[in-house]
């Protein structure tokens, strides 16, 4: 189990930085079209924010935002958004992942529809990556020692 640290400096800075980290992650995610960045980077930065909260305030407190169940849920939903957009294109009569077909629904021209499709996909990717990274973190950090021995010597 991760306990919270005693250090007031770490705690306060984590508290103050967290909204900015999330804001930056969302910026990276949404501006993937115009500047470096995109779904993966955004998702990983989001996950890093939660990891920061987790190591400074402890697992218990982080669960206000991100529990193991939420993480699982989001990882499914995120990937499903991606696959679902592809299926939507299929239903609209295009090939799989042919975002140009979304222009029929969105009411913009094909290039814009592709741009929006990319954005939607990136959001899905970001959700999935964030959730999976959190899952990996939770799973590895909360792995209990089953056979009763003391795990870790530090």
């Amino acid at each position, binding site marked *: 189990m991760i*306990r*919270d640290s*005693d*250090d*007031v*400096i770490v*705690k*306060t*800075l984590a*508290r*103050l930085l*967290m*909204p*900015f980290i*999330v*804001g*930056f992650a*969302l*910026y990276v995610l*949404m*501006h993937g079209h*115009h500047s470096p960045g995109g779904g993966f980077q955004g998702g990983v930065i989001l996950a890093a924010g939660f990891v920061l909260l987790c190591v400074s*305030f*402890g697992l*218990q*407190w982080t669960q206000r*935002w991100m529990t193991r169940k939420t993480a699982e849920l989001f990882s499914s939903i995120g990937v499903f958004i991606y696959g679902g957009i592809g299926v939507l294109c299929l239903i609209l009569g295009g090939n799989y992942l042919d975002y140009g077909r979304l222009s029929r629904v969105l009411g913009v021209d094909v290039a814009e529809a592709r741009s929006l499709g990319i954005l939607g996909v990136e959001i899905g990717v970001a959700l999935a990556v964030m959730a999976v990274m959190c899952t990996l973190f939770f799973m590895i950090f909360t792995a209990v020692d089953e056979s009763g021995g003391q795990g870790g010597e530090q």
Partner: protein
Amino acid sequence: MEVTLLLEATENAFRIIERAREHALGLLDTAVQFTAEETHYEDQKRVHALFAGAQRRKTRFQNMVGTTVIMFGFWLLLSGIFDAFHLTLGFLCSALVGVLFHDLLFSNVRVGDMRVVAGRFIAYIPWLIEQIVLANIHVASLVIRPRMPIDPKVITFKSKLETDVSFVTLANSITLTPGTITMDIKDGVYYVHALSKKVADDLNTGEMEDRVAHIFMEADHLYVQDVLDAARLYQAMRI
């Protein structure tokens, strides 16, 4: 002149008393909960105490709006694309952050007037930079000399600061200044590693602490004693 001072002092005294009462109530609360439940939720409770302040002072909604506005400013700073689509996205994202993390940014800021705090903080930065430059020169002069007359030691002092933000500001200012590093803060006691006697002395004069206290509108130790006296006087008068 003295009358205004006295009035100010009494006002301050009221605030202190009010705070003491709140504090006592909080303590009582904690004690009750302690006895009610068993002990092993201690960690959680400490965390809760850390965030309890803001939720009493400000409503959630104000916090959300505040966070959103700050995040939107941050977004504009980063973005550089100002068409309607991206601004809407920016607003949505900052609103999301505002809703999710409304109690992180503003928790525990003791005094409501953010404008004053921000102004003073900006005014503090040049002074800090000056200190950093001075200390840099000092440390460089120490290190350049072949004998290296350094005298490293750990000094401790009890700080009179009250909130976490001011603790952290002071700690980071100390760390930013070359020659001194904050190692730990335990219950208001700073453990600072100092490289030489001069930097330790500089720290012990307490100027930096006063300035940090001034930023966050905490008790200025120039007249804290007076205020306490006035408070005692006032209490005696009321009885």
